[in-house]
């Protein structure tokens, strides 16, 4: 018991100060891309050709579908002109699928605050249910991290919950 108390002091308080302070992200983190189609040489499709998920289209302006994007940066590496650049911007959540289509010159339509009526009903108690099917377990791994002391999602009134009576925590 004394050792567990000592350890408690040594481990310290580790919850991030977010949102009061911005998170410190690794320099190599690849977040929101910025598109500059004005730099594209005519007829060049290097970025679209390099994209492993066909997230980029060139007809009618440079456009990237963030719903397909892996943030692998194959496109920006393939571009001789720097027309696509990944930034450290981590705010990427939108309210609907189409808002993930990012066209040059546009800013990403981020999810806004809840409608007043929804907010009145839910208050600060948002319960989410996550079901995985046909993925790589990467999302699950990082969603679980939100419940560690570092992120402590519960302090925002957000919780991931079980959908049914079986509460055996696997």
């Amino acid at each position, binding site marked *: 018991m004394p*050792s*567990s108390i000592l*350890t*408690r002091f*040594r*481990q310290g308080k*580790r919850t991030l100060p977010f949102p009061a302070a911005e998170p410190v992200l*690794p*320099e*190599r*983190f*690849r977040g929101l891309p910025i598109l500059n189609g004005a730099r594209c040489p005519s007829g060049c499709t290097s970025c679209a050709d*390099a*994209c*492993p*998920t066909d997230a980029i289209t060139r007809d009618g302006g440079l456009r990237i579908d963030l719903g397909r994007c*892996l*943030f*692998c*940066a*194959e496109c920006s590496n393939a571009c001789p002109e720097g027309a696509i650049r990944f930034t450290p911007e981590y705010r990427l959540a939108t309210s609907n699928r189409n808002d993930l289509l990012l066209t040059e010159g546009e800013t990403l339509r981020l999810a806004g605050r809840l409608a007043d009526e929804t907010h009145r009903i839910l208050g600060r108690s948002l319960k989410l249910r*996550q*079901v*995985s*099917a*046909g*993925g*790589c*377990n*990467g*999302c*699950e*791994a*990082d*969603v*679980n*991290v939100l*419940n*560690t*002391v*570092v992120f402590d999602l519960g302090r925002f009134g957000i919780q*991931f919950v*079980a*959908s*049914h009576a*079986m*509460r*055996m*925590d*696997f």
Partner: protein
Amino acid sequence: MKPRACLVSIEMAIALSSFHAGEAISLQSIPNLSIAEFRTAILSAVSSTCSLAALFGMPAENQNVRLIAVLPDSATSRLSIFAAEVAESYSCLTLECPQAHWFEREIAEQWQVLPEGHPWFKPIRFHAPYRPGHSWSLAPVPGVTDFFAMAGEEVHQVAVGPVHAGIIEPGHFRFQCHGEDVFHLEISLGYQHRGVERALVGGPGKRTIHLMETLCGDTSIGHSTAYCEAIEALGGNAVSARAQVMRGIALELERLANHTGDLGALAGDVAYLPTAAYCGRIRGEFLNMTAALSGSRFGRGLIRPGGVGFDLDKRLVTELQQRLEAALDDVEDAVALLWGSSSVQARFEHTGTISREICDALGLVGPVARACGVERDIRQDFPRGIFRFAQIPISKWDSGDVFARAWVRWLEIQRSGAFIREQLAALPEGPILSSSGPLLPNHLVVSFVEGWRGEICHVAITDAAGRFAHYKVVDPSFHNWMGLAIAMRGQQISDFPLCNKSFNLSYCGHDL
């Protein structure tokens, strides 16, 4: 692959089929045996010091199926590879070699080749067959199948999943219980099946490396390293010492993160919350070190054919050294609480015990096998890259229970930490990436990596044009799920979460 001129004996076939992992092998040099010889060769190999790393089918001429077996011998650091052609059926291996159990079910499901006499003949992923003109489907709807069942008035079944209460992958667990006692557990998977192996045929292409990085999301480094070593063997390109060291560092960071997370999760499952909370945080420190290297916590973008995608400079090396020492101090502090707490030890010891005999019979791998006293580790037995020069001692314990699986992880954390410390201090200079040539046509390569869950085996086979004719992935979970089922025999059902965490197997890595 043409049949070889007649072989004098099985012994000769075995002698002729001795290869190295990571060596490009001409398809012609692989002994093409009759199915009877093939069976004998496998049974003879596993009765000595070989294990069955892979047994799979691929299309052959005349709509036949070619079976290929890969048998590494940890005593000699060499591997035997055999092939045999079958049409519709053959006499199963599983009765004599339980290691073949899951593989034979997979072969039957994919290629509709019947392993006659198989003791528990069922699909493992529930998908439509791959062989054209063959439609005796086993059961295409996931989970709709017969389960092993006990009978009796006081016997009952408990069905759990496929959708679970936590934020985890889907899988179905069927327990045969008498009161709290579990007599048998059957695990039914396939819900995460994406068809990855099929998508790899015809490659490599621009998607291939990304598919490798997401075969199993928590093992991106392990699987992408196995893939790159296969490509480099077939493409004949050399990887610089600097890149090899960086791959080694990334692989051990992946192990540190996952082992630390597992020890925290084990603590959580016995309601010892301090270690659960600390390790949950410290796991992230190791992931963030990988992110400092590659921009991704899982190391995506780091391992590339010919080397690595990102370099290290002096400043980043110093930063990683400081962060490593801090995280290692913290994890030692947090984990020490487990060993000093009698209530934790009482729950870990003698729970979910697997005997050495069962472990060997099932061909379990990784920390699970080393927790049964098995001295096997790819980094020692089939070292590639930096592991040929910097050896990490094998960590083992022999009690086979939850405690042993936790303890082996802790030993490995210390040794991986020491390895990274040593490598960061002596990073060789040089380029990080070399370009890859075209792949050798009609060749096969086996690559082995000791991922944090254990033995990762990739087998790449090229066609006449140097494209993938077949690509086989064996995640360590493929070997170990049966071990979890057996570990639950004779346990209380309430011990399942603890036993399960002590294995922490992958669903997607199994389902592919």
